[in-house]
């Protein structure tokens, strides 16, 4: 460290910090925009990139235009809603994971821990088995996800309060229960129609994304994420231990449950249109934290942008790499794990100063 007077050192550190944060955000946003654009130009159906960009521009400038050509429809009716949905879902899951890890003061939790995904999956599997499709399916998924959170809440309530550990344990119980029921449903499902649908959907996919479905899921994803973002300072408070948080004026139980409900809205919306997508909610917040630190005021937006970009890249691989649709869960693990391992090693090396 170069020697500086006290008066100079403080603003200099602040300037460096600010500059670094700005650079990181700019990079993340740029990556997202690039991922988005490339995604729209890439696919099994060959559309030259120039033409694809032209079509996107036409789609934005004149949204009510009749789409007649196959390339128009592919880019604007198949790829565009899918990429948008992937981005929103990735951002939502990442923000949820970041918020949850803050509230639980534990970097190992993911939205699954509240049983939301499993509850939502149960709703979906049940709907598929009963032959319910379309919007009733989405509604059922959403409500079962919320039901799971409510069950966790009821189960963890002791003496009118719910401790963090109790919530985690209750979440484990409820999610295991729903998981087991989903397995049971798989067991009795028709192997020609329902079962493959259930299995495929459980592995997560944006293949069924249309503008309709995207617009159905979008409010939940966007509103939930916005509210979580508005709570970014509060999440800093909630990430302190119980006594500290309460002494600063936080009603920890109530505020934590508000966060859970917002997460349930986000994850429920996401599962309803694209099945269970794991990994994003636990890994992206970590990566974002390694980049911008713990302060939720930077962490939440960073996680959102990183999650969106990551999910868009992953989904593009899933739909364009081979003739078959690769399930998302497979790719998120294959791609995410090595990246995350590298980040961790880098961080560890930094920390231990070696």
């Amino acid at each position, binding site marked *: 460290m170069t020697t500086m007077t006290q008066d100079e050192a403080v603003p200099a550190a602040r300037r460096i910090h600010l500059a670094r944060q700005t650079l990181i955000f700019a990079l993340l946003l740029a990556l997202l925009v690039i991922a988005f654009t490339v995604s729209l130009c890439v*696919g*099994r*159906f*060959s559309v030259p990139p120039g033409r694809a960009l032209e079509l996107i521009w036409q789609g934005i400038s004149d949204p009510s235009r009749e*789409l007649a050509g*196959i390339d128009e*429809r*592919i880019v604007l*009716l*198949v*790829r565009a809603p899918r990429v948008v949905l992937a981005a929103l879902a990735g951002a939502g899951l990442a923000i949820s994971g970041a918020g949850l890890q803050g509230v639980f003061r534990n970097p190992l939790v993911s939205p699954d821990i509240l049983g939301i995904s499993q509850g939502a999956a149960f709703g979906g599997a049940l709907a*598929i088995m009963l*032959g319910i*499709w379309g919007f009733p399916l989405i509604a059922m998924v959403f409500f079962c996800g919320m039901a799971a959170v409510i069950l966790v809440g009821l189960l963890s309530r002791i003496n009118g309060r719910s401790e963090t550990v109790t919530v985690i344990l209750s979440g484990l119980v409820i999610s295991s229960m729903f998981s087991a029921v989903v397995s049971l449903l*798989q*067991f*009795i*499902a*028709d*192997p*020609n*129609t*329902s*079962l*493959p*649908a*259930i299995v*495929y*959907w459980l592995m997560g*996919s944006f*293949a*069924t994304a249309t503008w309709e479905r995207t617009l159905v899921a979008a409010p939940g994803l966007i509103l939930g994420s916005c509210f979580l973002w508005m709570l970014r300072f509060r999440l800093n408070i909630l990430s302190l231990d119980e006594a500290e948080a309460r002494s600063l004026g936080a009603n920890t139980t109530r505020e934590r449950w508000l966060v859970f409900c917002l997460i349930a809205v986000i994850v429920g919306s996401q599962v309803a249109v694209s099945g269970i997508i794991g990994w994003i909610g636990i890994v992206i917040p970590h990566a974002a934290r390694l980049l911008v630190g713990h302060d939720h005021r930077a962490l939440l937006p960073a996680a959102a942008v990183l999650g969106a970009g990551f999910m868009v890249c992953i989904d593009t691989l899933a*739909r364009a790499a081979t*003739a*078959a*649709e690769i*399930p998302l869960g497979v790719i998120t693990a294959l791609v995410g794990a090595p990246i995350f391992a590298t980040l961790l090693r880098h961080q560890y090396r930094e920390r231990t100063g070696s």
Partner: protein
Amino acid sequence: MVPLSLVIATACRRRMAAALAAMLFAPAAFAEEIVFKDQGNREVRLAKAAERVVSIVIPMASTVIALDGSTRKLVGMNPTAKSAVVEGILGKIFPEAKDIPSDVTAPNFVPNVEALTAANPDLVIQWGDRGADIVAPITNAGLTTMLILYGTEELTRDYMTMASKAIGKPERIGELVEWRDRVQKDIEAKATVIPDDKRPNVLYLGRALSDISASGTKGNYNAWSIALAGGKNASGELNGTVSVNKEQIAQWNPDVIFLNAFEAKLDINWVYKDPILSLTNAAKSKRVYKMPLGGYRWDPPNQESPLSWMWTANLLHPDIFKYDLRAEMKTAYKTLYNYDLTDGDIDNILWLKDQGASADYAQFEAR
């Protein structure tokens, strides 16, 4: 109509097939005992012809009924087979078939051993190529099991023959196998001369409503029947049966699309209403067809397969293949089920109401 010489040759061949079938089965110590090797290479030993048969394999339920000419011997079937009975004509021909239990197995071929043993079967027909986990519970319960394999026409004929022997109706299979052989050869003869550029790209979708699935060519019966009828498998580059997205289908741009008969709620409008699929060659030329549901669904291998091949061939190459499908169906159903098909029955089986306006479908209408 079939020429007399063909009839005589057919009769001879039928007798030869019966004799051959008899020779396949080793002379048993007891005149009644039936011993054979199943497709899992296991020895199957029956003290006498099976009276109570459970078929966990879906199409075999209707095959057993056809071979026996009644529902008497079938005491258990797969729920997916039951749905075909209920939705299709077999439930009309054999109303009592709707009462045959289907709780003996889950749809995914995992047996319910309690229900199975309660049905007290002499013989259980099970897949041999889906792992030991679905076989062991049956054999451990001491039940005689016959394993069969999926995929090719040879295997299909072979296991149908085994089944007919096992239920003590060896004379039945001869004419059924001979029929299959005759139709296959007839189609092959005309199809081999079709040049490659005249073979349409045909896409069969095993699933459509949940996710969309298509299959590669290797070991796939649908791909084989498409090739037999002078078509090319549009999804041939795939490995096995996998999920595909609409963009990929647009890229393949098939000339003909066949929809599965498994999804009751699926009809050809699903293609025409879709913004992407409606722009495929198939949709634009109205060559989108749902596979018929007869005594069993016409997609997988079963006792009515030759009808399925003829239907496919007539649609893929109407200028080359001109089978009188309605007449063939009436003959077949008389042989298989001793049933006189009405014109209304045929219309229903072929989904004439829904796809009567599809290209070249008018040929299937009643005269």
